[in-house]
C-alpha cells in the first residue's frame, strides 16, 4: 500500500530545559495522524494546545524532540535545529497568523516575492499571480502598500502569496481569526474556491468549530497540553460547500456538539 502523503508519527515536543531547572513540560506528546494527498484537513483545539508549534514543526521551522514526520514515506523531522530546512524546499507552504507582508512592497510585489526568490518569475507565473489576485477580489489594489489595505485584504494577499508558487502542502494557522464574521465567511468561500481549482493538500488550524466543519474533509480534535489527537471526524457534507448556510445543513448540529464535547 502506498504510504500516506504526509504522516506524523508519535511526534513530541518540549522546549529546551534550562540549566539546573526541572525538565520543561511536554507541549506535544505522542501525536500521530496521517493526511492523504489533496485532502483538506482541519485541526481544532483549545487555546494552549500547541497548534502553532505543531505547524512550525511540520513546516520545518522548529525541531521536534521526538517522533517522525514522513513526507511520501521519507522521514523529514529534524532533531537538530541547525539542519532544519524551512518550507522543505518549498514543498510546504505556510500561511501564518500574522500576514507578514513586506511593508515596503506593493500587493503585486508581495505576491510575486516567492517567485522572485525562487527565480521563477516569467510571463506565465505573472499571469498566474494576476489570476489569483482577481480570484480573491483584489483587482485594482495591486499597487497599494500593505498599510493602505484593510486587515482582510492583507490576509488575502498573504494567502495568495503562498498559493502562487504551488507548494503541494499548505499549512494554515488560524488565518481568518483576526477578521470580522462577514469577511471571514467571504474568505472561507474564496479559499474553498481556490482549493477546488488546485486540490492541494491543506492542513488548516482553527479554534472555531463551525469553520473546522465547514472547510474540512476531516477534522482532527486536539487535546490540551501535552497535546495529542483526541478524536477524528470525517465530515459528511458534500462539496462544493456553501459556507454561509452550513449551519442549516442536516447533521451539522450533531457533529458540532460532538466536537464541542470533545474539546472540553
Amino acid at each position: 500500500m502506498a504510504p500516506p502523503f504526509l504522516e506524523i508519527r508519535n511526534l513530541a515536543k518540549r522546549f529546551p530545559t534550562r540549566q539546573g531547572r526541572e525538565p520543561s513540560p511536554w507541549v506535544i506528546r505522542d501525536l500521530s495522524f496521517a493526511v492523504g494527498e489533496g485532502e483538506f484537513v482541519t485541526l481544532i483545539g483549545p487555546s494552549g494546545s500547541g497548534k502553532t508549534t505543531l505547524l512550525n514543526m511540520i513546516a520545518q521551522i522548529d525541531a521536534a524532540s521526538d517522533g517522525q514526520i514522513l513526507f511520501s514515506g521519507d522521514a523529514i523531522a529534524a532533531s537538530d535545529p541547525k539542519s532544519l530546512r524551512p518550507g522543505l524546499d518549498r514543498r510546504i507552504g505556510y500561511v501564518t497568523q500574522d500576514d507578514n507582508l513586506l511593508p515596503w512592497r506593493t500587493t503585486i510585489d508581495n505576491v510575486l516575492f516567492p517567485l522572485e526568490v525562487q527565480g521563477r518569475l516569467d510571463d506565465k507565473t505573472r499571469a498566474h499571480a494576476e489570476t489569483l489576485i482577481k480570484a480573491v477580489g483584489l483587482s485594482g489594489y495591486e499597487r497599494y502598500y500593505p498599510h493602505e489595505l484593510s486587515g482582510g485584504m492583507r490576509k488575502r494577499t498573504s494567502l495568495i502569496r503562498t498559493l502562487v508558487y504551488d507548494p503541494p502542502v499548505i499549512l494554515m494557522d488560524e488565518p481568518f481569526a483576526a477578521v470580522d464574521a462577514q469577511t471571514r465567511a467571504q474568505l472561507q468561500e474564496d479559499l474553498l474556491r481556490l482549493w477546488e481549482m488546485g486540490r492541494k493538500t491543506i492542513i488548516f488550524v482553527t479554534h472555531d468549530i463551525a469553520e473546522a466543519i465547514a472547510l474540512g474533509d476531516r477534522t482532527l480534535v486536539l487535546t490540551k497540553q501535552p497535546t495529542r489527537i483526541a478524536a477524528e471526524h470525517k465530515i459528511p457534507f458534500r462539496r462544493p460547500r456553501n459556507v454561509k448556510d452550513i449551519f442549516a445543513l442536516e447533521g451539522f448540529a450533531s457533529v458540532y456538539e460532538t466536537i464541542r464535547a470533545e474539546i472540553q
Partner: protein
Amino acid sequence: MTTIDQVISTPAEPLISRKTAVLLGQLGFAAVLLIAWQWAADAFGIIFFAPPLAVLQRLYEMAASGEMFWDIWATLKVSAIGFVIAMVAGAILPFGLRLSPRVTEAVEPYIFWSQGIPKYALAPWLILWFGIGELPKVIIVIAMTFYVIFYNTLAGVRAVDFRLINMARVMGASEKVVAREVIWKSIQPFFYAGMKIAMPHAVGACIVGEFLVSTEGVGYYIEHARELSDTVGVFAGIVVATALVLVINALVNWLERRALAWRPVARDMR
C-alpha cells in the same frame, strides 16, 4: 522512546563564558590599536604620528606641572557657565511657548532655521565684538547646547498626558501643584535625555571654540601645539580632551540612573 530530547535540553557548555570572551576580544582589539599606533609612529615619522610612549610621557609632564589641570579647569569653567545658561533658557522657553500655541507656531520655523547656522562660524565675528577671551567661548557653548535642551524639553512638554492634568485639576490641585507634580514629573525623562546629550556637547563645543578664540584651555593647548608642529602635544591634548568628554558622559549616565531609579530605563543600543 528515543532519547533525542537529551540532545536538545542540555546545550554543550562553552569553554569560556560569553562575557569573558567579549572582554578578551575588547582587550585584544585595544592591544591591536596600540600596536597599530606604534607602527604608524615608526612608519610615518614623529611629525605625523607621535609614538605612544612619548605621548604618555608628555601627559605625565602636563599633569606634574599642573598645566593639565589649569587647562581642564579653564575649559570646564566656561563649559559649565555656558551650559547652565543654555539649560535655563532651553528649559524655560518651551514652558513659555506652551502658553500660546499661536506664538509657538509663528516662532518655530525661525528656531529651526537658526539651527542651520554653523555656530562655530560665528566665532570670528564674536572676536570682533568681544576680543579673544572667555565671553565668545561662553556664547558659542550656549549656542551649541541650547538647541538640544530646547527641543528635548519641547518634546516633553508636548508629550504631557492631558488626562493626568485634568485628573489633578479635578482633585482640586492648584496650577502650581499641577505644574510641579504632573508636568515636571512627566517631562523629567525628556529633560534628562536632553541634558545627557548637552553636557558632553558643551565641553566638546568649548574645546572646539578654543581652537578659534582662546588663550587657555584644552582646545587651545591642542591648536597651539599644532601651530608649533608639536605633534606629541597635539596627541596628548586630544587624549585629554577625549578623556574629559567621556568622563563627563559617564558621570551624566550615572546621575541619570540615580535620578530616574523609579522608571524602567529605556535600553537602546543593547
